[in-house]
């Protein structure tokens, strides 16, 4: 089975799972939608295992660049977001002193830890990949 056939089967499965979820919503049956989704996923995993999916170097390059771009956008966004959410609550502004926006501080903390987690993951993966591809050696 090739990539094209796999994509066609995937569209069909998504279509049928969509119908099942719609029916389950109409009948107010959570179980039916859960069974439908799980069966659809299992079927797709099974089909995928039988498919020779070709992941070539161009696609790998695209993935690398997409991941890089995602990091470059996401890390500063949540970092600045965390700062903007944490700063006003500690600035002594009267509107925040009443404690009405206490949830913003919690959200800011979540963003801050998320930014930290992201940076740590990046640093660790960079370190290991740099080692794997021969960086940092002193050999002549």
């Amino acid at each position, binding site marked *: 089975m090739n*990539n094209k056939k796999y994509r066609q089967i995937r569209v069909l499965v998504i279509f049928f799972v969509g119908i099942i979820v719609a029916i389950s919503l109409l009948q107010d049956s959570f179980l039916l939608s859960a069974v439908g989704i799980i069966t659809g996923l299992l079927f797709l995993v099974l089909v995928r295992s039988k498919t020779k999916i*070709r992941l*070539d*170097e*161009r*696609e790998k*390059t695209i993935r690398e660049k997409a991941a890089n771009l995602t990091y470059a956008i996401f890390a500063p966004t949540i970092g600045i977001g965390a700062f903007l959410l944490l700063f006003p609550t500690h600035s002594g502004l009267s509107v925040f002193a009443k404690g009405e926006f206490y949830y913003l501080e919690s959200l800011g903390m979540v963003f801050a830890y998320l930014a930290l987690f992201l940076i740590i993951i990046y640093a660790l993966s960079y370190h290991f990949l740099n080692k794997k591809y021969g960086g940092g050696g002193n050999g002549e």
Partner: protein
Amino acid sequence: MAAAVMENKLKVFRAKHNLTQEQLAEKIGVSRQTVNAIEANKYLPSLGLAFKTAKLFKTKIEELFIYQGENDED
């Protein structure tokens, strides 16, 4: 970052060998889109793929891919 500018004769060699993009892709183990992107000079193949393609056409790599310098775009 400077990026290498290349020209290639992949389309010419493919025509000489009577191969479609799909057939060539199958032989060198990439997708048809990749062959199309290389022919359109939108993607530079890796050294391994370039050698593999040159070997398939029984030619030298520099006859298939012609280095033309560098530009400043990434």
